[in-house]
């Protein structure tokens, strides 16, 4: 009940003219970056970040989170109409969304996607409303060892459940940690890992990394694959939209299951991309219409979309209540929180009630705004896709360059960004995950501090991580997640080969 009261208070904050305006702007910009290949939610949010420094934190987070929702929706539009995923997390939507649109039912495909997406997002927000403050309350009692254990758990779940080759994930994660350590050490004040370049004392900003990894890298992938835009009619028939939305409940079980998968993957940082693939895979395995998957099966759209949005939304839960972002975009937003002078984590729920509940309330509103706007603007953004790629590419390169430069007016950052671009391309090409790298840059220092403070408490003994039941459980859970890939492989070997892959 206390939560509901706080939520109502939050609606009071979010429902102002100014904030609704920011939501609309954020969603539209989000759809734009979602539609454009090469620009995605992490980039878009990073680009907007400098513009929010003069704002109230609650207004700023409403703008940024709305952009996130817009980007999640925008990515599905191009997946369905052009077979080009605008966002990595909407790749799974192309499997059935595009065939359905190609067969002359683009409106049905879009409406199914948006309807399930909205349901997934709603599930995520409800979960945040109910659980976030409770998690924060538990976390208030956390000391450094518990925090380190939670960080460990988060990173372990990337390796165990992210879906990428575990050692590649580990390397990506560790590179992020190393980059986070560059510059002045917060504990001792000494300068680390500058490789002889004086300017590196300022450290490596996550914005620079995001611009390169997700911007330039993604662009390189896009030109290399040379997609052909085959236009499908992008006219939205409203009657069909309503008919589809009314018919969605018959996929109720798939919706619930996918939302649950999404929420789980969002909270334990598996991320929306892994969530959508996992949900699609499970839907395909369980569905009686298995053979129809890949040919325009509605549940093939419902499953990835609901999971994608549920994961994207619930990724904010650990960010708010523990200070651990559940996705790359959430990591960028958390970087923003720290720049605005807020301390992400359980104290937010005590000290910044307006901020937290204003944000949560805006998530309900923002998703409604996003569904309406995305339906209204489908034809406009679809037309944008017909702009030739050789025009879009330089624009995106210039935007990323200026974005990286403006972080601290440094040309070195621009050079670094290009380096990250090449790395991002190689990593994407070879299935190294990028999200763990960004996450580790943002929270690497915090994880290290937690470890070193724990060591100070225990005078250098690792036993502190096994001293209390809670810490021990978290650490053991983390170890179990780390071993997951190995366990699955062993089980896979022992099981008969019959039911693998229909």
């Amino acid at each position, binding site marked *: 009940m206390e939560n509901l009261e706080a939520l109502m208070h939050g609606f009071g904050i979010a429902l102002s003219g100014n904030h609704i305006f920011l939501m609309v702007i954020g969603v539209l910009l989000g759809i734009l970056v979602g539609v454009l290949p090469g620009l995605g939610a992490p980039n878009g949010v990073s680009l907007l970040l*400098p513009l929010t420094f003069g704002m109230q934190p609650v207004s700023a987070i409403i703008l940024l989170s709305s952009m996130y929702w817009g980007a999640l929706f925008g990515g599905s539009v191009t997946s369905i109409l052009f077979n080009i995923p605008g966002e990595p997390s909407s790749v799974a939507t192309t499997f059935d969304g595009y065939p359905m649109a190609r067969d002359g039912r683009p409106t049905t495909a879009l409406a199914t996607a948006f309807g399930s997406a909205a349901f997934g997002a709603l599930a995520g927000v409800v979960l945040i409303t109910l659980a976030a403050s409770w998690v924060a309350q538990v976390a208030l009692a956390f000391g450094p060892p518990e925090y380190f254990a939670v960080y460990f758990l988060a990173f372990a779940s990337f390796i165990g459940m992210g879906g990428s080759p575990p050692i590649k994930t580990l*390397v990506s994660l560790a590179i992020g940690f190393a980059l986070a350590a560059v510059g002045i050490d917060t504990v001792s004040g000494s300068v680390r*890992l500058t490789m002889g370049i004086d300017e590196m004392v300022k450290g490596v900003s996550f914005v620079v990394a995001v611009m390169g990894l997700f911007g330039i890298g993604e662009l390189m992938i896009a030109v*290399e694959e040379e997609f052909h835009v085959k236009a499908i009619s992008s006219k939205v028939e409203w009657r069909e939209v309503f008919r589809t939305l009314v018919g969605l409940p018959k996929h109720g079980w798939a919706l619930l299951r996918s939302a649950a998968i999404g929420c789980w993957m969002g909270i334990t940082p598996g991320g929306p991309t892994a969530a959508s693939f996992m949900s699609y895979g499970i839907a395909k395995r369980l569905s009686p219409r298995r053979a129809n998957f890949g040919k325009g099966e509605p549940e093939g759209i419902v499953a990835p979309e609901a999971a994608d949005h549920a994961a994207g939304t619930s990724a904010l839960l650990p960010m708010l209540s523990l200070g651990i972002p559940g996705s790359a975009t959430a990591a960028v937003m958390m970087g923003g929180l720290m720049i605005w002078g807020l301390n992400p984590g359980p104290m937010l729920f005590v000290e910044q009630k307006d901020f937290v509940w204003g944000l949560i309330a805006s998530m309900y509103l923002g998703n409604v705004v996003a569904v309406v706007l995305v339906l209204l603007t489908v034809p406009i953004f679809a037309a944008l896709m017909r702009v030739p790629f050789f025009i879009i590419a330089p624009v995106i390169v210039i935007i990323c360059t200026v974005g990286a430069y*403006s972080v601290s007016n440094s040309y070195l950052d*621009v050079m670094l960004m290009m380096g990250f671009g090449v790395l991002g391309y190689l990593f994407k090409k070879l299935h190294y995950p990028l999200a763990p790298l960004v996450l580790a840059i943002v929270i690497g220092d915090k994880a290290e501090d937690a470890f070193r403070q724990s*060591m100070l408490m225990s005078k250098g003994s690792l036993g502190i991580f096994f001293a209390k039941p809670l810490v021990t459980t978290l650490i053991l859970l983390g170890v179990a997640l780390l071993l997951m890939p190995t366990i699955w492989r062993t089980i896979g070997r022992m099981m008969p080969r019959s039911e693998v892959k229909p």
Partner: protein
Amino acid sequence: MVSGRSLEAATALITGAFGAAVIVSSLDNGIGWSAAGVESGTFPLIVGLVILAGSLFNLVQGWLHARAVILGPSELRRLATLFVPAAVFVGVIPLIGMYPAAALYVFGALAWHRRGSLLLAAIAAIGAALALYLMFELTFQISLPRGALGTFFGF
């Protein structure tokens, strides 16, 4: 032509070299336990070792598995048409500044693909530079680099 094998190997070598650099660099900061707690080089050392070990593993794995060509001549050519101009654009920023660099970049891209007239390309180029100026210099008061050329003209 680039095979999956050599791409895997190159990436593993890059990450491995980075790991090695991190290890060497972290040794300067002191490793282990001192009166002030864990010394500041310890964490980077562990991380560097993880990167190096992981890269070695990926190197071997990549060498054993992927053999097929994953980047043919046409893919490489397309990559180059994106990356080379972008790298030139970034490279000339210290010389001629962001605005002329951006304008030339847009002009070059449009002229290269021969769509529309050169006049149109020139208009788009100036438009791009102007949009940057309005957006960053005026609206958000972020000063973009002027380059040696800008200094020379006192801009």
